[in-house]
């Protein structure tokens, strides 16, 4: 069989030092009182946002607005919720995490690297020629990626499959899927939502990164999603609306034990969160900051 160029980039492997750091953060998180947990997540999220900024700056491309809106959700999941072992990324009992909005790969990669799924220093290869760190995640190259996303409307059906597998196998692992809000304009999500409710897939949680902006305009001006919570509820999902930048609210809902029905979490977020001149700016969907903007943003994220 012919070996193609893209296949030639060797898959990434785990990083012991980053893994040890993640384990110690995770142990501390489990040991400390609630208020200290929140400050730990805040500190980790600031690290991740700086890493995303540096990664996009170096690559000269990325989706920084959505990366920043989803950062707190990802950090909360990987540092405080998911039952995973980055040293054993294919452990059968692991919780499954799927980033359906695959264009926010820089955010996912930054988080996966911080967990030790691969060496954080490899983030400099983001989107570089022949790099395993493609502009959209590839599970064949990156440990911790469960399925290849990029085209929108793909993550939830795969997540429904993961949750169905847990059901048939009689296993207790959970499945979390993060979706963009604009992505909900894809009909495949609603096929999946309908079936997840039909099967009563309580182990499945969909988190909507509700930043209210899609590539070219607001969701309201494009193809309005409201009443969004009512839609999920009408499809038979246990539904809640939270502040997607509140670690307290994220932890409360994501850490809650599974119920009888799949759970939809509409996480209200701010596109570009954390950098004042990016927040709620539609142009920051995939705009790349200038050197001066990177400096200014880095200062805000360090404060």
């Amino acid at each position, binding site marked *: 069989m012919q070996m193609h160029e893209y296949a030639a980039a060797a898959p990434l492997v785990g990083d012991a030092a980053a893994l040890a750091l993640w384990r110690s953060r995770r142990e501390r998180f489990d040991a400390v009182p609630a208020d200290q947990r929140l400050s730990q997540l805040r500190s980790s999220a600031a690290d991740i946002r700086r890493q995303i900024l540096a990664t996009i700056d170096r690559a000269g491309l990325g989706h920084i607005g959505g990366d920043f809106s989803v950062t707190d959700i990802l950090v909360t999941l990987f540092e405080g919720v998911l039952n995973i072992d980055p040293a054993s990324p294919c452990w*059968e009992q692991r919780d499954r995490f799927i980033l359906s909005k695959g264009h926010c790969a820089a955010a996912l990669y930054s988080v996966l690297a911080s967990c030790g799924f691969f060496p954080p220093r490899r983030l400099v290869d983001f989107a570089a020629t022949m790099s395993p760190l493609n502009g959209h995640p590839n599970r064949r190259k990156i440990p911790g990626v469960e399925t290849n996303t990029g085209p929108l409307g793909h993550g939830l*059906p*795969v997540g429904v499959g*993961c949750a169905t597998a847990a059901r048939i196998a009689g296993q207790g692992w959970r499945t979390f899927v993060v979706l963009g809000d604009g992505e909900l304009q894809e009909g495949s999500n609603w096929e999946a939502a309908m079936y997840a409710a*039909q099967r009563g897939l309580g182990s499945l949680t969909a988190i909507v990164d509700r930043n209210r902006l899609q590539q070219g305009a607001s969701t309201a001006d494009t193809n309005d999603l409201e009443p969004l919570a009512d839609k999920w509820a009408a499809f038979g999902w246990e539904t809640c609306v939270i502040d997607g930048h509140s670690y307290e609210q994220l932890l409360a809902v994501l850490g809650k034990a599974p119920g009888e029905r799949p759970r939809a979490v509409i996480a209200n977020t701010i596109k570009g969160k954390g950098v004042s001149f990016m927040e709620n700016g539609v142009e920051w969907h995939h705009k790349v900051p200038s050197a001066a903007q990177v400096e200014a943003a880095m200062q805000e994220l360090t404060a």
Partner: protein
Amino acid sequence: VSKEDSSSGFDCRQAFAEELAALAQADARIVAVCNDSVGSSNLGAFRKAFPERLINVGIAEQNMVGVAAGLANGGFRPFVCAAAPFLTGRALEQIKADVVYSDFPVVLCGMSPGVAYGELGPTHHSIEDLAWTRAIGDLAVIVPADPEETRAAMQWALKAGRPCFMRIGRTKVPAVMPEGRGFELGRATVLREGADVTLVAIGTMVTRALAAAEQLAAEGIDARVINAASVHPLDEESILAAARETRGIVTVEEAMVRGGLGSAVAELVSQKMPTPMRIMGITDFAPTGNSSAIFEFFGLTPANIARRAQELVHAH
């Protein structure tokens, strides 16, 4: 549902259903995923034996293929059973991204492919599937020619544990494969030796190619007949040998001529062993009729296959 083709033989869906149940009996990882197609995919017995392992997502093909990928992620070996036109056409991006690019061991079983649905018309015909699937990564594209090859291909797919697309024929076919031949990806079967011209066929067209070879023999033309079976990857050795040893190649498929078996053979021989060819298949949306009538309309008859082979023999 379309009136049955009157020709005698076997409906490969029956062999498929029996084999799937047998494989599932021995391997708890096997699940069937379908789109309200329990009846048309003959999954009734499977459902009875393994109710938990039959995942019927309803009429939702995109979700069906995504769910199959997720089941594979969770350790299962899904066989997706759905009418070929909807499985491929409706869920093509899920096949590309969720199954092939993600590299999950999902077996996509396109039921009643080609023009098997006859009078139901081009919406229900699956003639584009080979062109579409052949263009996706390294997806294995398999067209079994008879019930035994269908079973063997399923056994192979389970062992191989890689993304596969497989046609499961509804149009009745006789047994054409030698007993015990089995299936291997990238391996064709020479069903009849011949030195003058070669007929390369797949699926329902294999028996017609064999009949054409009989007619050619009566006229003193010695035709080799090859069942290609593995459309991607092709059995390059067998095809190149035919190009080298005979005066030309006629390909015959129950599929659109642009992008299917004929294209695959042409891509190969034009670069490695240029040889005259005739590419026979379906050239446009079919008119109303059962599959036999449609084969007739597009000239997919033994007499016409023989005629095209004669052109090659006489011209060169």
